[in-house]
């Protein structure tokens, strides 16, 4: 009887191991948007993103979110105007969702389909390339999302009657930890 109980216990333990979902947590991030104007260019940086990934049956679903007001361009007046034009008080968060195969963590690069919610709009970006680098248990991901103002129906801000460019690429650098 004790052997049967031991065998049953072992079987249950093994079953739990295989049934458990693997999770990822965003440890560190740098998100940088770039805006171009004929007179000068500007970068706004945020380190306040949070993210989580849940893997199940070989596929992982990721959610990354960052508050709009955390982007810092070095000029408080510009940042306030950015929040206003992106309706950041009404829609305070930028969220990014994507799905990747669990085996992607072992690759040097991956192409992801992204769904981004920003300024009250949802935009899809197909096959955005990201580079991966593993250091110990951490996985570093970097890439650039080719976002535009028109994707999110944002009126281009202007300075001296000249509007900024429609392209606002967002550079993404993230460090993920498996849980």
């Amino acid at each position, binding site marked *: 009887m004790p052997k049967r109980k031991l065998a049953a216990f072992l079987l249950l333990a093994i079953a739990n191991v295989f049934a458990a*979902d693997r999770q990822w947590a965003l440890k560190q991030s740098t998100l940088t948007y770039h805006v171009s104007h004929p*007179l*000068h260019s*500007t970068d706004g940086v945020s380190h306040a993103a*949070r*993210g*989580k*990934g*849940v893997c*199940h049956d070989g596929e992982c*679903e*990721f*959610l990354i*979110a960052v*508050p709009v007001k955390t982007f810092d*361009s*070095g*000029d*408080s*007046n*510009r940042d*306030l*105007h950015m*929040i*206003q*034009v992106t*309706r*950041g*008080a*009404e*829609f*305070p*968060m930028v*969220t990014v*969702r*994507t*799905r*990747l195969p669990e085996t992607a963590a072992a690759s040097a690069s991956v192409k*992801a*389909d992204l*769904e981004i*919610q920003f300024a*009250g*709009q*949802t935009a*899809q970006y*197909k096959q955005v390339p990201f580079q991966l680098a593993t250091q110990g248990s951490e996985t570093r991901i970097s890439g650039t999302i080719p976002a535009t103002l028109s994707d999110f129906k944002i009126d281009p801000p202007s*300075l*001296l009657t000249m509007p900024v460019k429609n392209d606002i690429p967002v550079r993404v650098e993230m460090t993920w930890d498996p849980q």
Partner: protein
Amino acid sequence: MTLKPKISLGIGILSIFVLAVNPVWGQEGKTTAPAQAPASPPTKPSENLPDAPSSSKTAPSLSDLGFSPEETEANARQQALLDKRTHMLKIHQRMGLITTIPLVATVVTSMNAGGRNTSSASRDLHVALGSVTGDLYGITAYYAIRAPRMQGTETRGQIRLHKTLAWIHGPGMILTPILGAMAFNQKNNGEKVHGIASAHGPVAIVTAGAFGAALLSVSVKF
């Protein structure tokens, strides 16, 4: 009617026109109505994308990430305040650029307004342009001063220089016409400009320089 009142009348009419086009002044003291509801909910993701995320039970949600309610909840009142602030500062920017034109003209005409061999017509023109500049400057300053402040925001970057320079060209735009009026009277009385009135020129130059620097501080990156 002499030249100066005609010019002032023209500017008054122009100001009324500007305000009519941008009726913020008429709405001063009122807050714009907050949005009844946020914009329509985001559309569902396309199902044509093979790797597009779906709303599965395992997908993480925003509540899993640990953001506070203040960070995730919509604030329509603050958005309305931001909208009003941006609107007023846009008018401030536009009026500031318009003010530059008579300001430059005033400085240019100052060369014929002083000295020994100057006609009263040259001085009258300089006075009229100075009056126009003062009026437009006042309107420009109004929109900057009355634009809503966002609580909890620290002033950082080149905008600090822009705001600091206002402490130079602001008092200068008050002092310059006062000294100018004194100098004008002395010249009309056949006197040589003397005393504190002789500071009209230097004060005006410093004021114009500070104004130009203020304009550059929000136009170019340095």
